[in-house]
């Protein structure tokens, strides 16, 4: 089959990516619009970014969001990695089907259901809603995403590496930290990043589980969006997009560079240099 240049493939990719990116590009462009009217171009300006800095409510929300995201992503990574190991390595244990069900369900579960359910739990046990309930809820749904990411790496993990370590006298616990963890680390880091952005972006589950004093950035954006499109929201959105894009792009460049170096080394090794 022909690779690359068929007109069909090129058209599909071009149109597809235009569709994916055009709205985002427009949003970013109009965040630099001097005019208050979002859809009328009034010249280039960064004044909306400046005005963000004086919006205390927004800054507070951003601070809450970042703290929740850091804390929940970190704990979700630990729990999700454990869950992935349990899924891949201990295939059959009592209640294993229930366990894997609970790991995969949150991936597709409509957020309104998850959000409502968690809120009702916190109410039932009399847990004051706020920062901590928000964090617990975020850990719970994002750990499942981490589990899936780490799991896909563990599935392809060469078990004989761990056996070799055991064989050379390294006890299991130490083997995990000296052999397994360093080798699955890229997946664990990717899992953390995913959990971080999921937490950063979440609106629905947060709206249900939060309480007074713990308003997150997406909740703030949502309440303003309902009132209409403003260049200020465009500016916040642009900042959030920039943060995520930078993270993802750096990560992918690092991986790609490593891959290229690795391939080069392998070629040299085959040539016997």
């Amino acid at each position, binding site marked *: 089959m022909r690779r690359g240049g068929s007109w069909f493939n090129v058209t599909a990719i071009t149109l597809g990516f235009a569709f994916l990116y055009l709205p985002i590009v427009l949003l970013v462009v109009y965040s630099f619009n001097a005019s208050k009217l979002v859809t009328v171009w009034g010249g280039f300006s960064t004044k909306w970014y400046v005005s963000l800095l004086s919006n205390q409510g927004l800054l507070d929300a951003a601070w809450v969001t970042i703290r929740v995201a850091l804390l929940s992503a970190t704990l979700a990574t630990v729990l999700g990695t454990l869950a992935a190991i349990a899924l891949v390595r201990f295939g059959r244990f009592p209640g294993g089907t229930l366990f894997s069900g609970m790991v995969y369900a949150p991936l597709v579960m409509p957020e309104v259901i998850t959000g409502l359910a968690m809120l009702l739990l916190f109410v039932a046990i009399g847990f004051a809603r706020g920062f901590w309930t928000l964090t617990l809820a975020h850990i719970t749904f994002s750990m499942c995403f981490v589990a899936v990411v780490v799991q896909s790496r563990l599935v392809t993990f*060469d078990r*004989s*590496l761990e*056996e*070799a*370590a*055991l*064989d*050379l*006298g*390294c*006890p*299991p616990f130490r083997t995990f930290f000296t*052999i397994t963890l*360093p*080798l699955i680390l890229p997946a664990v880091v990717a899992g953390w990043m995913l959990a971080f952005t999921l937490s950063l972006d979440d609106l629905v589950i947060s709206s249900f589980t939060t309480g007074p004093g713990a308003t997150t950035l997406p909740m703030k954006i949502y309440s303003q969006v309902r009132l209409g499109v403003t260049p200020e929201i465009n500016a916040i959105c642009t900042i959030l997009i920039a943060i995520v894009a930078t993270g993802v792009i750096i990560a992918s460049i690092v991986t790609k560079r490593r891959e290229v170096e*690795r391939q080069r*080394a*392998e070629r*040299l*090794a*085959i040539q*016997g240099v």
Partner: protein
Amino acid sequence: MAGKSLSAGKSLGPIRRAFAPWNDPAAKPFIQFQNVTKNFGDFTAVDDLSLNIYEREFFALLGPSGCGKTTLMRMIAGFEEPTSGHVMLDGQDLVGVPPYRRPTNMMFQSYALFPHMNVWDNIAFGLKQDGMPKPEIAARVDEMLALVKLEKFAKRKPHQLSGGQKQRVALARSLAKKPKVLLLDEPLGALDKKLREETQFELIDLQVKLGMTFVIVTHDQEEAMTVADRIAVMDQGKIVQIATPAEIYEQPNSRYVADFIGDINLLEGHISSTEGGVATLDCVGTGAKVQVIQDGGAKLGDHAWFAVRPEKVTISLTPPADPSINAVTGEVWDIAYLGDVSIYHVRLATGATVKATITNTTRLVERPITWDDKVWLTWSRDGGVVLTR
């Protein structure tokens, strides 16, 4: 070639020739399997198996995939525990001892080199686990690197090595701790044929030089025959035969072993006489009589098979002096020219095919015997064996 440099000096002949502790009733087995069974769910991988391996022996477990040979080896390493029975090493029961506390080391089929550590750290890994002082580790690693001729590659990562180099790092790593037993799981499977043959001799040299016990798992019969002092041929979780390579080849105890190792012709029949240490087999169909010197395995009236290797069959256009004994006749059906030898496939009147190997001692392209020729196949009374199973 590295193999030559390793074995430079004296021939290993005297050491290898005199070594046969399995014939010595006073010798103490080093590794012992006592009625070991291993089940995986409904599947029985190892079935009530008993086996002795002696110190300094190079022992091969040979069989097709799924015969239980790898499971057997993994029970020595500690990755599998027997469902029942005992595995002993040097008088110590290994059951319940985790792999990281066993005095055995393994060379993995995939080499299992830690990709995030360089060659030096890979070799030092096991030594560090024992808490050996740093200078000693360094000395030992350097010694190992010298042994496998990889001094210059100490700082390389595994992906910067060729297949042969990786194999040598894996070997060095598993030897570094001076294990009581070195386990080799299809150690040369990933190498090309030429390198594999070279490395087989290196392994023998190393084993003799270090005076260690080696257990190798392989499905390659040539490899097993080249390296091993004794071979255990396995089938469906049981050992079919344990013997030296020559015994396995010349005196297989069953059709399974005869067929698994090398090429074999089988003629089915009944034993009509066992007088004077010579068994007579009346072949089914052809009625040909086969006389074989034997030590009493087959009894009168037994259903049996005469097994003879193709290279021990002589092919001729003229009938032998006595065509009723140890001779069959047929037509040349096909000829496989392999360069060093040619294999003649001769179709008998019964439809059975008998193969005969002829060494091509001259450069003549035209052979005197060719397709569709009517030929006679003969063999001597000690050319084959009678098998009853």
